[in-house]
């Protein structure tokens, strides 16, 4: 037999949103490093609107090139580069 134990009161859920508060504090906090921002930008570009002008290179190739440049500039470690590249290739 199931022991049914209801809460005293159901939450109202009218408070501030977790996701919104998270987005706001991430924008002003200093916890994001240059490397993680660079990685996120490389990934975000994939989700943006279609390009206005015809691209010289396919978008994916441009992003992989950018990642390589970041790695060569020392902004990404080998591990971070591999991880970001894998992300680009599966999404």
């Amino acid at each position, binding site marked *: 037999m199931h022991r049914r134990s209801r809460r005293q009161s*159901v939450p109202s859920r009218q408070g501030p949103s977790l996701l919104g508060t998270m987005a706001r504090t991430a924008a002003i906090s200093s916890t994001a490093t240059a490397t993680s921002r660079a990685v996120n930008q490389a990934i975000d570009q994939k989700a943006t609107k279609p390009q206005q002008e015809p691209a010289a290179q396919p978008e994916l190739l441009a992003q992989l090139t950018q990642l390589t440049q970041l790695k060569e500039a020392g902004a990404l470690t080998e591990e971070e580069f591999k991880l970001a590249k*894998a992300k680009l290739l599966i999404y």
Partner: protein
Amino acid sequence: MVIGPIEMLCIKFPSSSSFVKDGIASALRVLVENKTIRIIDILFIQKNDIGEVIMNEIDDLDAIDYSIFDPIIADIAGLISEADVQTIAQNLDNNSFAALMLFENTWATAFRDEIVNAQGQLLLNERIPSSVIEEVMAAQKTVSI
């Protein structure tokens, strides 16, 4: 009260009855009883055939075995807001059901505290999809041949 690292998880199911299957309830029960996690908040989101979003509390679902939530249900604080539900529901197709859970990674609390004591700073926290792991492992095998 010390709160460990909190995580939000949203999983889509074929129907509300898939979620209440014993397998999930038992698996969650084991995690909670072992103090691996604590369920901080849980709710269910439905989108009907015309895209309307319906939010259900655990209290609204008859078939749930409440005993798995008993140790925690008194602590459920309603941290997930209606605004969060609307944002998340944007990614749901019509005629779908999803469970949204906020849980504490209780297992990681002591580890996290030691890192804080050592002035460690979180740089990256990513779940790597298994498909990516498989792809990278396969590529490594190719390289080493």
